[in-house]
């Protein structure tokens, strides 16, 4: 093997990059799941016939959607310890990602719910379903089928946003790339490799979203 060739630094340090790669995946999956649950609850809150809950939903969405994610991240990691609440770097990243993206999930879910015909809700209510049972068994299953494409795009955005966690020293993919760069100064190769690793996640995810979207479009036409 030649002593040095283009990309050798990447091959030699692949285990380190892959460590970061796994943390990126974990962080993405966990915060996606939390944002999905939280976002659904808030999306439903935005349309319930109970004003205080609706107002809470609106304030949540507008607040978290309209402030930068980076600031929310710093607030969790640097700000909250001043108030005596301490999160690890990973937890800070997890919660800020989840809370931030939940605002977008909520908007998608709300739009999905509102696209379901009013009769669907009324049919269930008149047959004895409570409001929540109707939401759970009748409205949300249909709404989710509609919002899968926008949610897919949202989770791609979330995955890329996990790179912000490098700023608070979460040892995810970008952070490991930076560590490696400061050690070797092979900036070009290292960040090319990091970029490719992100693509290894986002491209299949994007392809999957497209596939689901086409399936749903066909199902929508009744074929």
């Amino acid at each position: 093997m030649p002593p040095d060739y283009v990309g050798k630094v990447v091959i030699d340090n692949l285990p380190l990059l892959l460590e970061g790669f796994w943390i990126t995946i974990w962080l993405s999956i966990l915060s996606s799941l939390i944002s999905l649950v939280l976002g659904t609850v808030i999306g439903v809150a935005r349309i319930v016939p109970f004003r205080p809950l609706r107002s809470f939903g609106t304030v949540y969405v507008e607040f978290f959607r309209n402030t930068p994610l980076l600031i929310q991240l710093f607030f969790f990691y640097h700000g909250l310890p001043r108030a005596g609440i301490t999160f690890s770097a990973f937890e800070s990243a997890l919660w800020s990602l989840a809370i931030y993206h939940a605002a977008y999930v909520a908007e998608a879910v709300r739009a999905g719910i509102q696209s379901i015909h009013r009769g669907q809700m009324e049919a269930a209510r008149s047959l004895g379903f409570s409001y929540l049972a109707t939401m759970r068994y009748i409205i949300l299953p249909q709404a989710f089928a509609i919002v899968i494409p926008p949610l897919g795009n949202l989770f791609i955005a979330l995955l890329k946003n996990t790179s912000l966690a490098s700023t608070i020293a979460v040892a995810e993919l970008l952070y490991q790339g930076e560590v490696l760069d400061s050690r070797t100064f092979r900036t070009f190769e290292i960040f090319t490799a990091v970029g490719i690793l992100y693509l290894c996640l986002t491209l299949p995810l994007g392809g999957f979203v497209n596939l689901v979207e086409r399936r749903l479009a066909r199902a929508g036409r009744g074929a």
Partner: protein
Amino acid sequence: MVKVALDNVSKSYGKVRALHETTLELEPGALTAILGPSGCGKTTLLRSIAGFIKVDSGRICFDGRDVTELPPQERDTAMVFQNYALWPHMTVFDNVAYGLKLKKVPASEVRRRVMDALELVEMVDILGVEGIESRKPPELSGGQQQRVALARALVVQPKVLLLDEPLSNLDAKVRQRVRVEIRRLQKRVRITTIHVTHDQEEALSIADSVVVMDKGKVIQVGSPQEIYRRPQSAFVAEFLGSSNVLTGQLCRADQTISVGGIKLSCATAAEGKATVVFRADEARLAGEEAQVQGNVVVFQGEVEETLFVGSAFRHFVKIGTELVMVDSPESSPFRRVKVVVPREKVQIYPLEG
């Protein structure tokens, strides 16, 4: 069998009164049709009974129990919609079964009741047991979907069955069939049923009792025959069937009404304008020179147009300045004609105000 009673129920949307103080009692176990043109308040009335609309004042009672403040799911009603409103993500079986599942009915009983309900609407024959368990509503025709919707409503054994123009989306032939089915089913299960429609033929043919509404008010309540034969206002007469409406002038002094160039004797306590109504199929045409006998009203007119409408020829006849319709089995050979109506078929309604 539950008696539904409305006591002074009213509802406004902003400045629009959708429902004026309405008091109504519906016979237990009967099928009551609520009939009226769009915007007459019939849907508001139905949705108030279902609990989807919070009424401004008044009380709604089922068998004396006040349900005015109850949410829809606690009223023991079941509603069938114009657009079916089946749940597209569930199979036919689940659509019918879900209401029972949520009520924690044991699985074996759920299955029996679901199949019984689907049998009742003849869907078991159409889809088979396998089809019921695998097909979803979007794969069914409109008529089939509405049958499933009926089964879904009946399976929970509601106290009151609410039908919101259930036949309006179906095409003519299917509509006739499902209409007969609804009548047959309702007679069998004897659930107090309220059927909202703007189709007078539909209302008259399947209802035990008809409530005619206009502009948020109940205009007349009665059996289909009563409503058809003895309409108590020009509105009801006009709305039910092909009726002709002429404007006349009442004269109290000599107890007559002048209408269409003639004078009729007419017992009246009122003075001023009145509407004179008769049905197109109860009038006949005769030649200008013909001698007419009996207790009849005869107008002079001119045939303007004759249309073949299938069951009859419809003549458009100008009487003075007003146009009336006369249906007869043969096309009239005359242009200048006499329009002959039996006196007892001519209804006179003084105009209010």
